[in-house]
């Protein structure tokens, strides 16, 4: 059938990561109960403390109701109709040697363009790739180990570095923090763990790649990054998923802890499958991300480029506890077709002279719905706190929307807080100018959108910045009319 072929090629053009890798996987039946949690814990051969932690979170979760306050709309999720664990069957479940990994899996990552093996060494990026629920391979381990850096999958960390895990896990996002965080705490299957010892500057970018492959599964990964005194780490996270006509839930938790003088840079390029043009399928990305500047003069920055997901609902936040600590949030959120985003940040100023910057760029096209929701809270103790927020929205077409809900709470006089926001569309003059210089209308829009996001994109590491630009272009295709 010629027609369906044409349709297929058109679709795969707009979402090039929408392939499914046919490899056998070990997926447990759908449903959630204590038995499932025990099963997940047993499959991962976790120590006792982890199981009881999970069970406590699960019991807490049972008493919670799903939050409904946000501006995103989605049909009720049936939590009993999700499989909470899916792992690709490999020869040896514990393998970290690339040779043992299923070649099909490697091919998958190849298609995604993540340089997992050789190319990677050249790029100087250490990758922990998470395929469905299980961490597949962690590269560059030995090189990092020499510096005392621990970078491994969460399940390995639970077994090998249980003291660190026990000390820090859940200390920023407690298991009962919110509905999705509690769900994550009870069923999380894998994720990345990273510990940078005092005084170490991590020599390469650390990276995790998430991919949801199996159908009907949810992905609940948990990432924990600890930067000890005066250390530095830059961390990248990328995500993709195949095209499915059903919605899939992704409820991750990311915790960052920066000790005295430490700096963590966390960058995300999120490209989950956004659903088709009618809004069918796609990932629900309900993630809790929070960092704590625990020590004085510590720094945490979040940079995110959100182009995928049917629904993005997350607020990467920073708790500025240490004196003189700095929190930064840079975000580009693009919603096209029927995508929805309710995203923003929270900056909680607790320590003296803490500073935070928020820069949020929202782009809505098609029937996209984009909301910025942010909180800047300056407690009475946070003398001399400083915040500047800027949230700009760009509207393309008259069926999309942009909402801005900034919350500003200030409790002392020595602090300065500023917020500004604008909403507008691309003006005809701008387009005309570009077009008379020989650009097509689409190129002109793409150029203007890229310029609009420039300030955020340049915060990303080089390779990611290029990818992010391309993603913006691809995702805007067909939205200019």
């Amino acid at each position, binding site marked *: 059938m010629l027609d369906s072929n044409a349709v297929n090629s058109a679709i795969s053009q707009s979402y090039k990561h929408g392939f499914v890798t046919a490899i056998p996987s070990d997926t447990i039946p759908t449903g959630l109960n204590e038995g499932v949690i025990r099963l997940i814990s047993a499959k991962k051969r976790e120590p006792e403390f982890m199981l009881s932690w999970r069970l406590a979170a699960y019991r807490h979760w049972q008493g919670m109701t799903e939050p409904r*306050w946000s501006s995103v709309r989605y049909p009720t999720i049936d939590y009993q109709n999700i499989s909470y664990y899916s792992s690709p069957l490999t020869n040896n479940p514990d393998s970290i040697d690339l040779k043992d990994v299923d070649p099909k899996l490697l091919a998958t990552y190849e298609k995604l363009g993540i340089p997992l093996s050789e190319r990677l060494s050249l790029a100087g990026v250490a990758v922990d790739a998470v395929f469905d629920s299980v961490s597949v391979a962690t590269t560059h381990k030995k090189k990092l180990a020499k510096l005392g850096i621990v970078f491994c999958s969460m399940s390995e960390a639970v077994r090998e570095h249980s003291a660190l895990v026990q000390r820090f896990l859940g200390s920023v996002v407690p298991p009962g923090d919110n509905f999705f965080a509690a769900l994550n705490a009870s069923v999380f299957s894998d994720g990345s763990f990273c510990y940078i010892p005092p005084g170490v500057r991590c020599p390469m970018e650390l990276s995790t790649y998430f991919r949801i492959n199996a159908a009907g599964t949810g992905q609940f990964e948990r990432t924990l990054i600890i930067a000890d005194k005066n250390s530095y780490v830059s961390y990248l996270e990328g995500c993709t998923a195949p095209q499915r006509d059903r919605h899939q839930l992704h409820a991750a938790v990311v915790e960052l802890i920066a000790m005295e003088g430490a700096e963590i840079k966390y960058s995300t390029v999120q490209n989950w499958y956004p659903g088709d043009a009618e809004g069918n399928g796609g990932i629900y990305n309900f993630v809790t991300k929070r960092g704590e500047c625990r020590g004085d003069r510590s720094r945490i920055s979040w940079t995110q480029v959100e182009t995928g997901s049917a629904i993005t609902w997350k607020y990467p936040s920073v708790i500025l506890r240490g004196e003189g600590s700095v929190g930064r949030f840079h975000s580009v959120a693009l919603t096209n077709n029927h995508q929805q985003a309710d995203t923003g940040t929270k900056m909680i100023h607790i320590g003296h002279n803490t500073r935070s910057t928020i820069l949020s760029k929202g782009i809505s096209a098609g029937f996209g719905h984009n909301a910025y929701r942010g909180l800047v809270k*300056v407690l*009475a103790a946070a*003398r001399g706190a400083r915040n500047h927020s800027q949230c700009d*929205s760009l*509207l*393309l*077409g*008259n*069926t*999309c*929307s*942009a*909402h*801005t*809900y*900034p*919350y*500003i*709470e*200030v*409790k*002392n*006089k*020595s*602090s*300065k*807080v*500023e*917020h*500004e*926001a*604008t*909403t*507008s*569309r691309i003006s005809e003059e701008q387009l005309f100018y570009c077009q008379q210089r020989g650009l097509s209308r689409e190129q002109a829009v793409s150029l203007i959108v890229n310029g609009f996001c420039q300030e955020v994109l340049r915060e990303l590491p080089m390779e990611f910045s290029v990818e992010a630009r391309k993603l913006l272009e691809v995702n805007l295709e067909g939205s200019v009319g």
Partner: protein
Amino acid sequence: MNTPVTLYRDLFTELEKSLPGYDSLPLRGLRQEGMQHFMDKGFPSQRLENWKYTPVKAISQKIYHINNHACQGLDPSDLLPYLIAPLGVYRLVFVNGWFSQTLSDLHDLPDGVRVESMAKLVKDAPDMLEPYLKNKKSGSDQGFTHLNDALWSDGAYIHLSPGTRLERPLHLFFLTATSKKSMMTLPRNIVVAGADSHAWIVESFASLGHFPHMTNAHSTIILHDHAHVHHLLHLGENHSAQHVGTVESTQKGDSRLDSQLFSFGGERTRQEIHVQLAGEQAECSLDGLFIGNGRQHMDFHTSIHHTHANTRSQQLYKGILAGHAHGVFNGIITVPPHVHHTQSNQLSTNLLLSDTAEIDTKPQLEINSDAVQCSHGATVGSLDPEALFYLQSRGLDASTARNLLIQGFAEELLQRITPKLVQNWIEKHFNKGEYHHES
């Protein structure tokens, strides 16, 4: 159960017959309906997003007594400190919620302008009022408004025929003579500005004495094509007063509303202003200045709904907070799909003068159309130490320098008041503000 809600129901049953409009079946029905809504919803709770920062319990838990007759025995000279000017102003005075003929002054009203007491009007022409009383747009979390629907006592009805101009300001003055028996007054005002009409309306609230009391006010303003209304709201009740008020305005094509709010008094104040720009080229400007000290709580909620193309709005709210005062600003601008070429600006700037004062500000935009120009901003800060130093280096003492900077902060809003008569009056109130004594 003796909750405040059931006590108000009992009070309603007791008072119903004596409230204006009982003889008119539709109006009686509206009151009963209001009570029913109030019974269903009760007072809002702090868990509701729009009431998050408002200490609703402190406002609603106390039971107030409701007076069903005017207070007698006030002398016109008692009023003098509160008046804009003894002459040159039309004046409607309401004491304890009821119209006082003797204290009011409506001489020389131009033809085509009708100014009357609501209580009187419902007796004379209930049918005329019904549509205005009915068409309220309050949301589902407006327990206080429903209570006003059920129990409103009196207020002003102002009707400007097409083309009329009210040259002098019209002062609606609501005075509560407080006593040990805490009282709630529930004024209800209706302003209808016909096509091409023009008016200055000043609504002010004050108390005699220092006992606690509560005001639950509601005003509706309707502007027809090309009408222009200045609405100035002055909240200056005593420091144990609770004030909850709502202004709802609907604007037709080419009309203009200039709303100015000055809030200096009260213990806890919550004022809402809702505007619908329901006609092309309609325009509104909402300004506010609030000064809080001691333990005052001041809470301002505005919403502007651009339902028609080519409408414009601007907002400037400034807060000055000292002592343990708590200020809240929550403004929302909505543009529905397919409404084009709207312009809106919203700015909330705040000055914190002490480390125990708090401000929570939330300027919001809900834009569902692309052909818009919209911006908003918010700032929170304190007096600039360098500016203070500069002034002191020029020979001013610290407190003069400080006052000068505070005055400079407020000046922009004070300058916008017209006519001069009203401006002087507000400046007088501003200058005796209590922020002066605190450091």
